[in-house]
């Protein structure tokens, strides 16, 4: 109650510090691709987080480097019961949606249920569906999540570190206007409210007067524009029409020379190649073949040339480094694959393929990876040099995905720029990519890894989780389950008026918060 009174005082009382600092001006962010462009969090998933995170608050906030924080989300505290089957969240008081309604435990419960409903396509909802038993709301500022089994994964799953399941929506408003209207005119409790959207063009937001997360926002208007063509985006930056834009690694130097600041999201993604399952009739079933294909590639050369030096060699399949930190994985130096075509040839000969074998490589473009096809061509070139006969198959991603999940091309190669993420994010990724039972997207068939992944979900001792995660990484590396290629640094160019920006290291999140905060 005392807190509420204090807050009311802050809200209503005269405040000399904030009085003259009203949001003004505009911030425009131009991106080459916009994912699905939806405005309803349950229809979106992490692809649209970069703008939805300004409209909505998460149950649990994260710091720019991805640590869960009681200061940046709706929950100011959370703790498990002794058996780790009841998670109690204490909610921030006095948070209001853009229409004035107060955010309470009823909104939180309703939002979570909506996120795991059948309508939801957020993507990480599956695990929550399996785990959740009940959600209790003993008080307007208390939510208790009851799970079927003991677990540690609830807070990170509902945080800004992952996808959109943890976004809190206004129950009354959505119930009043309906799902379809909400999807067109969303209302949240975030520092910016929705103004308009023209699909294929832009999403425009405007600042609220004051917000608990950012204080008084700096810019009155924030616009996200989709500008697919590199030349156009750069011209817009040069003319001052745009403040933040993604820039191709090829043009970083040119923009830098023209005096525009460049900011990097370092190790933003792991470029990872895999072989489509099942392997029982194809050469890559042999561990030596998998190692040979890894040794044949000069990762340093690829990083230095195709990625213009804005990348570093990777050595562990699915080795997402932001997760390494959390589980204390060993120093990555020993993981590196040397470039050793001679040994690769020898391994192939030992495995019974002295003359190589044909292998198909799907070549496709992905968002944030303009170099995709080039990289595929380069890998094909390296493999050719150890006697393998690669065949490039140009497709677009959805066509490839069909081949992959239908298991229509065993042993053929696909790739993805896996967004880097913390341990729980890495876990969710492995759960889809390396957990065999009933997963069409699986790329690794290994019962030992399956067992460890299942154990983690029920483990309540964090240190034991770390041990499991380290053992999984070790096995992925020693069995050569895939071709980890490089870690990509993603450059962003800004206008000259942006003096400082940390684009952060949260999966698919640009930390626009920092730019939008008054400093």
């Amino acid at each position, binding site marked *: 109650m005392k807190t509420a009174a204090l807050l009311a005082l802050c809200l209503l009382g005269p405040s000399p510090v904030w009085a003259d600092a009203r949001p003004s001006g505009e911030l425009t962010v*131009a991106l080459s691709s916009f994912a*699905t*462009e*939806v405005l*309803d969090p349950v*229809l979106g*998933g*992490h*692809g649209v987080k970069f703008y939805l995170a300004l409209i909505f608050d998460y149950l649990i906030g994260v710091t720019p480097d991805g640590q869960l924080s009681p200061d940046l989300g709706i929950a100011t505290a959370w703790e498990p019961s002794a058996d780790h089957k009841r998670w109690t969240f204490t909610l921030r008081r006095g948070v209001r949606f853009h229409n004035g309604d107060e955010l309470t435990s009823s909104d939180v419960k309703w939002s979570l249920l909506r996120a795991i409903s*059948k*309508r*939801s*396509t*957020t*993507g*990480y*909802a*599956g695990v929550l569906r399996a785990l959740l038993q009940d959600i209790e709301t003993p008080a307007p500022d208390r939510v208790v999540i009851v799970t079927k089994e003991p677990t540690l994964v609830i807070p990170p799953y509902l945080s800004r570190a992952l*996808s959109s399941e943890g976004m809190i929506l206004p129950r009354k408003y959505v119930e009043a206007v309906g799902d*379809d209207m909400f*999807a*067109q005119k969303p209302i949240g409790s975030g520092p910016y409210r929705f103004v308009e959207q*023209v*699909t*294929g*063009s*832009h999403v425009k937001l405007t600042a609220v007067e004051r917000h608990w997360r950012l204080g008084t926002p700096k810019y009155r208007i924030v616009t996200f*524009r*989709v*500008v*697919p*063509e590199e*030349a*156009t*985006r*750069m*011209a*817009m930056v*040069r*003319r001052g*029409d745009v403040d933040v834009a993604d820039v191709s690694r090829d043009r970083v130097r040119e923009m830098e020379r023209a005096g525009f600041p460049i900011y990097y999201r370092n190790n933003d993604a792991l470029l990872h190649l895999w072989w489509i399952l099942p392997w029982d009739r194809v050469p890559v079933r042999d561990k030596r073949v998998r190692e040979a294909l890894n040794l044949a590639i000069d990762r340093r050369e690829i990083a230095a040339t195709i990625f213009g030096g804005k990348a570093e060699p990777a050595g562990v399949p699915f080795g997402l480094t932001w997760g390494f930190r959390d589980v204390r994985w060993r120093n990555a130096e020993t993981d590196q694959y040397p470039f050793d075509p001679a040994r690769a040839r020898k391994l192939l000969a030992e495995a019974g393929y002295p003359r190589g074998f044909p292998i198909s490589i799907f070549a496709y473009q992905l968002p944030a990876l303009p170099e995709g096809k080039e990289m595929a061509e380069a890998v094909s070139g390296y493999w050719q040099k150890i006697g393998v006969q690669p065949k490039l198959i140009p497709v*677009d*991603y*959805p*066509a490839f*995905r*069909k081949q992959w999940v239908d298991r229509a091309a065993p042993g053929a190669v696909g790739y*993805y720029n896996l967004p880097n993420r913390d341990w729980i994010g890495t876990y*969710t*990724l492995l*759960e*889809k990519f390396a957990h065999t039972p*009933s*997963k*069409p*997207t699986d790329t690794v068939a290994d019962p030992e890894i399956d067992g460890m992944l299942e154990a983690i979900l029920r483990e309540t001792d964090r240190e034991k989780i770390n041990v499991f995660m380290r053992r999984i990484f070790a096995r992925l590396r020693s069995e050569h389950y895939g071709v980890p290629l490089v870690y990509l640094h993603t450059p962003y160019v800004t206008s000259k008026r942006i003096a400082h920006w940390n684009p952060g290291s949260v999966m698919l999140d640009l930390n626009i918060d920092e730019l939008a905060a008054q400093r």
Partner: protein
Amino acid sequence: MARFLLTRLIQSVATLVLLSLVIFVLARATGDPLTLILPMVATEEDFANARRYLGLDQPLHVQYLMFVGKAAAGDFGTSIRARRPVIELLRQRLPSSLALGAFSMAVSLLIAFPLGVLAAVRKGTALDTGAKIVAALGQALPTFWVGIVLIEIVAGRLQWLPAGGNDSPAHYILPGFTLGWFVIAGLMRLLRSSMLEVLDSDYVKTARAKGAGEPAVVWRHALKNALIPVVTFAGVYFAILVTTAIVVETVFAWPGMGRLAYEAITARDFPVIQAVVLVTAVIVVAVNLVVDSLYACIDPRIRIDPRRP
């Protein structure tokens, strides 16, 4: 006349029905839209849920009949990707496409007219050759390359004009010119050759004999007649604009129909693909119908002209 109109109208509707069937089948041949709207880690359960929600679990013929029935009433369903009514997307995109189309048509007419007429009048001179080269370049350079070079120089280096978006009148200049240049060539050639023909006709010879001054002959008597084939070109012109617009809209981040079609195809967004193709076709067919009818009004012989069945 009424009979002619009726026949043409029935033919047009038949054409559109045929097209609706083709595009329905083609759109579905592109594959599964859900792979793109669902996150990479989505399960088969997520897929089944989304499919049911979007009505994609219905039998194909039911989907087709629903599509045609609703489309006739102006309802094109819900976009799979953006999850909002397709008609709303069209309402956002069609006007900006038409605006750009009109602007670039104006640009190309402004350039093609004087050039085409002068080239015909001064046939064989340096001016004729120059005009031909300007026109030919427009058709011999890939549009996207022209657009990008213009952006790099005019917007990026000189910073004279904006590059992306459609916020102000200045935003029309670069994309309008890029789009227009491609059709200038066609227009100019058409105008030049039809001018040459008219200038050689008895009609013009009579005008000259009657003592009309050369400028009057060219601009009043000859041009009026030379325009007829140019007007016929309008329908074709529009179809070309739509096609080229996909490229130009991508380059200039222009929120138009072409870009909408491109996004829809790469996202396998059936309802949007169907709507864009159908709306484009309706416009092309309607323009042709109007042009033909006007023609038939002006010149009754056209009605039996074997060249315009």
